[in-house]
C-alpha cells in the first residue's frame, strides 16, 4: 500500500479537466449560439434581402438585354462608335496631342511665372497700402499708385493668356464632345441596372452585423426586443410576406401614428417583450405568463388603453363593433363596467298589458328571435310555466283581466285604407321598420318588423303610439310625427288591414282571435312572475313598476380582461382548453353550460364575428396604467340644444340619423355646418315638403311640422350651425355662360353622373343635383369640390384633385342648376 503522498491522481485530474473544458466550451457555445435564435433569423433575413436584390438584378439584366436590341439604343451606340472612329483618325489624334501640349505650355510656362509675379506685386501693394495709411505721406501714396498700376497691367496680360488657354481648351474638348455626349446618352439606358448593381455590390460587401435590437420605453415601463427577429416590421419596403419578417400591416394607421420609438410593440400586442430565447416565450404563450400575445384583430383590445372612443377610429373596427354590441344588446343592463353609462335599452313594460296580446307576449318570451330575427332581446330559455308566470305578472301591473282588442282587422273602409297607405308611404316608415325583410335601412335602430304587427298590438295602443310615441316610451327613437287625429286613424286603419298574421288568423277559430278574450288574472302565478322578473333582472333593460331601485344582477366586468384562468369557473365543462379566451367565447355562446340551473345569463343570437368582437371588447376591460400623455381623450362637446329648437329636436329625434358636433349618427348628412351649406329658403321648403334628394330608403320623411316650428328650426340652423371655414372662398366672380359651359364639360368628362342625378339621368349614390343652385351655397359647393372628405356628408365623394380654375367653373355650373332651368337643360342633353 502506497502512502497517500506517493499515489498518482493524474488520471483523475485529467478526466476532471477534460470535463471542465468541455463544460466551459458548451457554456460558451450555448451563450453565443444556442440561446440566440434571433441570430439565425437575422442571417435568414439578410440572405432573403440579398436574394431579392439578386433576383431584381437578373430581371434588370434581361430587361437591359432587350433594350440593347432596340433601335434607340442601337442608334446611339452606332453614333458613339462613329464618333470614336472619327476621333481615332490620325489627323484628329495629332490635333488632340498638339492642343494638349499647347495647353500644357501655356499653363505651365507662361501662366505660372506670371502668376508668381502677380502675387509678388499684390503683396507689395498691400505693404505700400499699410505704409501709406500709417504715414500718410505723399511719397508713399505715389509709390502705392505706381504699384497698383503695375498690378493692373500684369492682370491684363494674365487675363489675355487665360482667354487663349480657354480657347485652346475649347478646341480640345470639341474633338471629344461627341463621344462624351453619346456616352452619357447610353448611360441613361443603363442607369437602373447600374444602380441595382451598386446596391448588390454593397450588400455583398458587408452584411449588417447581427445584433439584438431593443426598444426601451421608460414611460410605459417596457423593454421590447421583438425587432431582433421581426426585422422587416418597420421597413419601408416589403421584403417577404412571411413571419417573422413581414412588414407591419396597415402601417399607415398603426406605425405612422404610433412610432416604435414611443410605443414599442408589447403595449399593443402584449407578450413577453424581453424574452429572446424561444419563440413561445417571446410571445408569452407559455403557461405562467399572464399576458399572452394578442394575435390578429384581438390586438385591438389594446386600442382602448389610450383611446377613449373607438367608433370611427380606423383600425379599431372589431373592438368598436364589440362596444356597440355591448351597449345595444343591453349587456350594461346586468353588468356594470366603469365608463359605460347605464341605459335601459328596452321599452318600458309597466303598461305592456295594454299594448300587446297575451299570446304574443308568450311567443316573444319563448324566444324573441323566433318572432323577429333581428330582435335584440336575448333568449332567457324559460319554461312554459315561467313564461306564463311572467306574462301574468306584466299584465297584472296595469289591468285586472287579460285580453286586449287586437288591431288586426281585414275589413276596414277602403277609402280610409287608401289614404292611410299614401300616408304610410310618404312618412317613409320603411326606412326604420322593415317589412317582409325589406327596408330597415338604419342599422342601429331596432324598429319592429311591420309584417305582422297588427296581430301583435292593440288598436287603441297603436293609435296613441302614432299620435305621440313619447307619451308611452320617453326614450324612444321614433320621431313624433305631427299627425292630426284623422290622419292617425287612417294610418291605423291601413296598418290593421295590411299587417295581419294570416297564418295565426287561420289557426284560430273564426274571428275569436280578433276579438278580445277576457280572463281573470291568476294572482299566484303573477306573484311567481314577479320573483322571476327579479331573478332574471328584466329591469336591467326595461322600466318596470316596482323595480326602480334594484341593482344589476350580473358580475362587474371592469377588469374582466385581466382575470386569470384560476378565477374563471369552468364548472362541469371539462373538454375545453383552460384559457381566458376559450372560457369567454364558450360563455358568450352558451352562457349556462358551466353551471346549469344556477347561471341566469340569457343566450344571445349573434354571428361568429359579433361574438369575436364582444370577446375583443371584453379583453380590453383592464386597468389602464398608461401615462396621461398617451391618453387620447374624446372630445366632449356635450351638444345639447336648449329652448324651442332643443325641444323640437328631441321630439323628432333628429340625432338618430343626423350628426351635430360629435353627437348623433351617420345615417343622414351631418348638420354641424348646415347653416353655411344650404340656403334658408330651400331649407324652409324642404322641411315643409322634403323633395326627393336621395334614394327612397335614405330620404328624409315629412314630419308635418307647423310653420312656426319650421321657422324656429330654420333660424337655428341658419344662425348657430355655421362654420366660417366653409365661407373661405368669398367671391367666385360673376356666373358667365362660358364658365358654365366649361363646368358642364368637366361634369361630363369626370363622369359625375355615375353617382349624381341631374334631371332624370345619373346614379343615386350621391344626392340629386337638379336644383343644387337653389339648395347649396356656392361657397359650400366650392369647398366641397376642393376637399370632399372634409366638407361633405359622406366619405365616399372622390377627390379628383381639380385645379382651382376648374373648381370655380364647376361651382358656377352647379350653382346655375335651378329648378326652372332643369327642364331646359334636360331637353338639351337629349
Amino acid at each position, binding site marked *: *500500500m502506497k502512502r497517500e503522498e506517493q499515489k498518482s491522481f493524474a488520471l*483523475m485530474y485529467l478526466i*476532471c479537466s477534460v*470535463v471542465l473544458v*468541455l*463544460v466551459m466550451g*458548451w457554456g460558451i457555445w*450555448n451563450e453565443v449560439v*444556442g*440561446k440566440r*435564435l434571433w441570430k*439565425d433569423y437575422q442571417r435568414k433575413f439578410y440572405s432573403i434581402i440579398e436574394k431579392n436584390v439578386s433576383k431584381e438584378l437578373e430581371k434588370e439584366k434581361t430587361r437591359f438585354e432587350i433594350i440593347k436590341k432596340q433601335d434607340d439604343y442601337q442608334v446611339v451606340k452606332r453614333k458613339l462608335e462613329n464618333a470614336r472612329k472619327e476621333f481615332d483618325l490620325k489627323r484628329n489624334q495629332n490635333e488632340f496631342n498638339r492642343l494638349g501640349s499647347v495647353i500644357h505650355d501655356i499653363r505651365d510656362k507662361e501662366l505660372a511665372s506670371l502668376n508668381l509675379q502677380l502675387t509678388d506685386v499684390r503683396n507689395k501693394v498691400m505693404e505700400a497700402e499699410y505704409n501709406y495709411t500709417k504715414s500718410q505721406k505723399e511719397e508713399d501714396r505715389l509709390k502705392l499708385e505706381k504699384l497698383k498700376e503695375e498690378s493692373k497691367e500684369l492682370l491684363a496680360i494674365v487675363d489675355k493668356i487665360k482667354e487663349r488657354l480657354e480657347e485652346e481648351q475649347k478646341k480640345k474638348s470639341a474633338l471629344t464632345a461627341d463621344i462624351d455626349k453619346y456616352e452619357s446618352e447610353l448611360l441613361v439606358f443603363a442607369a437602373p441596372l447600374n444602380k441595382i448593381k451598386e446596391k448588390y455590390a454593397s450588400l455583398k460587401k458587408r452584411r449588417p452585423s447581427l445584433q439584438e435590437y431593443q426598444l426601451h420605453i421608460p414611460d410605459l415601463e417596457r423593454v421590447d426586443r421583438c425587432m431582433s427577429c421581426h426585422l422587416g416590421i418597420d421597413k419601408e419596403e416589403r421584403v417577404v410576406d412571411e*413571419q417573422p419578417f413581414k412588414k407591419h*400591416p*396597415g*402601417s*399607415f394607421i398603426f406605425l405612422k401614428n404610433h412610432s416604435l420609438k414611443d410605443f414599442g410593440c408589447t403595449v399593443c400586442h*402584449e407578450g413577453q417583450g424581453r424574452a429572446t*430565447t*424561444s*419563440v*413561445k416565450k417571446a*410571445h408569452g*404563450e*407559455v*403557461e405562467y405568463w399572464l399576458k*399572452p*400575445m394578442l*394575435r*390578429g*384583430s*384581438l390586438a385591438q383590445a389594446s386600442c382602448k388603453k389610450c383611446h377613449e372612443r373607438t367608433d370611427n377610429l380606423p383600425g379599431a*373596427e*372589431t373592438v368598436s363593433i364589440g362596444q356597440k354590441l355591448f351597449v345595444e344588446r343591453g349587456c350594461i343592463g346586468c353588468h356594470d363596467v366603469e365608463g359605460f353609462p347605464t341605459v335601459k335599452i328596452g321599452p318600458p313594460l309597466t303598461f305592456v298589458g295594454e299594448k300587446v296580446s297575451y299570446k304574443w307576449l308568450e311567443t316573444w318570451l319563448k324566444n324573441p328571435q323566433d318572432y323577429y330575427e333581428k330582435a335584440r332581446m336575448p333568449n332567457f330559455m324559460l319554461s312554459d310555466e315561467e313564461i306564463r308566470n311572467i306574462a301574468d305578472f306584466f299584465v297584472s301591473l296595469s289591468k285586472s283581466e287579460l285580453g286586449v282588442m287586437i288591431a288586426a282587422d281585414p275589413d276596414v273602409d277602403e277609402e280610409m285604407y287608401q289614404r292611410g297607405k299614401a300616408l304610410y308611404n310618404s312618412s317613409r316608415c320603411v326606412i326604420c321598420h322593415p317589412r317582409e325583410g325589406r327596408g330597415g335601412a338604419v342599422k342601429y335602430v331596432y324598429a319592429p318588423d311591420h309584417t305582422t304587427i297588427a296581430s301583435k298590438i292593440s288598436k287603441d295602443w297603436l293609435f296613441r303610439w302614432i299620435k305621440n310615441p313619447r307619451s308611452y316610451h320617453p326614450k324612444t327613437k321614433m320621431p313624433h310625427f305631427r299627425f292630426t287625429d284623422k290622419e292617425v286613424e287612417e294610418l291605423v286603419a291601413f296598418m290593421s288591414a295590411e299587417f295581419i298574421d294570416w297564418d295565426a288568423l287561420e289557426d284560430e277559430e273564426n274571428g275569436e282571435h280578433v276579438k278580445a278574450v277576457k280572463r281573470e288574472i291568476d294572482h299566484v302565478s303573477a306573484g311567481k312572475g314577479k320573483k322571476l322578473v327579479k331573478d332574471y333582472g328584466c329591469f336591467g333593460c326595461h322600466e318596470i313598476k316596482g323595480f326602480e331601485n334594484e341593482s344589476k344582477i350580473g358580475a362587474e366586468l371592469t377588469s374582466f380582461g385581466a382575470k386569470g384562468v384560476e378565477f374563471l369557473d369552468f364548472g362541469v365543462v371539462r373538454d375545453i*382548453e383552460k*384559457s*381566458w*379566451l376559450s372560457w369567454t367565447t364558450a360563455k358568450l355562446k352558451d352562457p349556462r353550460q358551466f353551471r346549469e340551473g344556477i347561471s341566469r345569463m340569457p343566450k344571445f343570437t349573434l354571428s*361568429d*364575428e359579433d*361574438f*369575436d368582437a364582444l370577446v375583443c371588447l371584453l*379583453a380590453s376591460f383592464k386597468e389602464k396604467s398608461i401615462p396621461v400623455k398617451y391618453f387620447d381623450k374624446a372630445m366632449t362637446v356635450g351638444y345639447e340644444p336648449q329652448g324651442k329648437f332643443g325641444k323640437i329636436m328631441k321630439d323628432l329625434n333628429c340625432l338618430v340619423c343626423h350628426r351635430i358636433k360629435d353627437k348623433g349618427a351617420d345615417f343622414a348628412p351631418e348638420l354641424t355646418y348646415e347653416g353655411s351649406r344650404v340656403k334658408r329658403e330651400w331649407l324652409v321648403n324642404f322641411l315643409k315638403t322634403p323633395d326627393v334628394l336621395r*334614394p327612397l330608403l335614405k330620404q328624409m320623411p315629412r314630419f308635418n311640422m307647423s310653420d312656426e316650428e319650421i321657422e324656429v328650426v330654420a333660424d337655428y340652423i341658419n344662425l348657430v350651425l355655421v362654420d366660417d371655414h366653409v365661407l373661405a372662398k368669398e367671391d367666385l366672380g360673376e356666373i358667365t355662360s362660358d364658365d358654365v359651359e366649361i363646368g358642364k364639360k368637366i361634369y361630363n368628362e*369626370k*363622369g359625375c*353622373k*355615375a*353617382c349624381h342625378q341631374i334631371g332624370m339621368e345619373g*346614379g*343615386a*349614390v350621391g344626392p340629386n343635383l337638379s336644383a343644387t343652385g337653389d339648395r347649396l351655397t356656392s361657397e359650400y359647393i366650392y369647398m366641397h369640390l376642393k376637399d*370632399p372628405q372634409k366638407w361633405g356628408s359622406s*366619405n*365616399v*365623394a*372622390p*377627390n*379628383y*384633385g381639380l385645379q382651382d380654375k376648374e373648381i370655380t367653373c364647376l361651382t358656377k355650373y352647379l350653382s346655375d342648376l335651378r329648378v326652372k332651368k332643369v327642364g331646359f337643360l334636360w331637353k338639351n342633353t337629349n
Partner: protein
Amino acid sequence: MEKYKLNQRKPCKGIISVLIVLMVSACQPLANSEEDMDTGEYFKPEGHVMELKTKESFEIRNGRIIYIEHCAPCHGATGKGDGSYYASGLEPKPRNFADPEFAESVQDDYLFEVIWKGTAAFGKSPYCPPWGGTLKEEEKVRNIISFLRTLTLHAKPK
C-alpha cells in the same frame, strides 16, 4: 486504509454524474429551440394562445371595409357589378370582379393603377373616379386588391 479508498472514489463519481446530468439537461432547451425553427411551429401556434376564431388578415379586413364604403355602391357587395339600383343605368356596366376569367387576366399592378388614377386615364368610361386623391395611402388600394382577390375564391372557373 480501505476507508480512504472509498472516500476518494465516491466524490469523483458524484461530480461526473452531476456533470452528465447537467449536460443532458442543458441540451434539452437547445433541442426544443431547434425544433421551434425547423418544424415551423411559429406559424401554427397552439394552446394558451389569444387568437380570435374568425381570423382574417388585416389586409383583407381593411380592404373589405374600404370596398364596401367606396366601391360597393356600383360594383355590389359581392363584386358582381350589381350595386343595387345605384348603378342600374350605367353604360358600360360596372366590372364584375367575381368573374374568375377577369381576375386571372389582370395583374395586381394594373388594378392598382386603375383604382388610383381612375378608368378615364386608361381610355375607358369616366365613371370610376380616380381614388388616389381620396384614399391617399397606397396601402389602402393594395388592401382593396387583396380583398378583390378573395371574391373569386369560391367561384368555379368556367
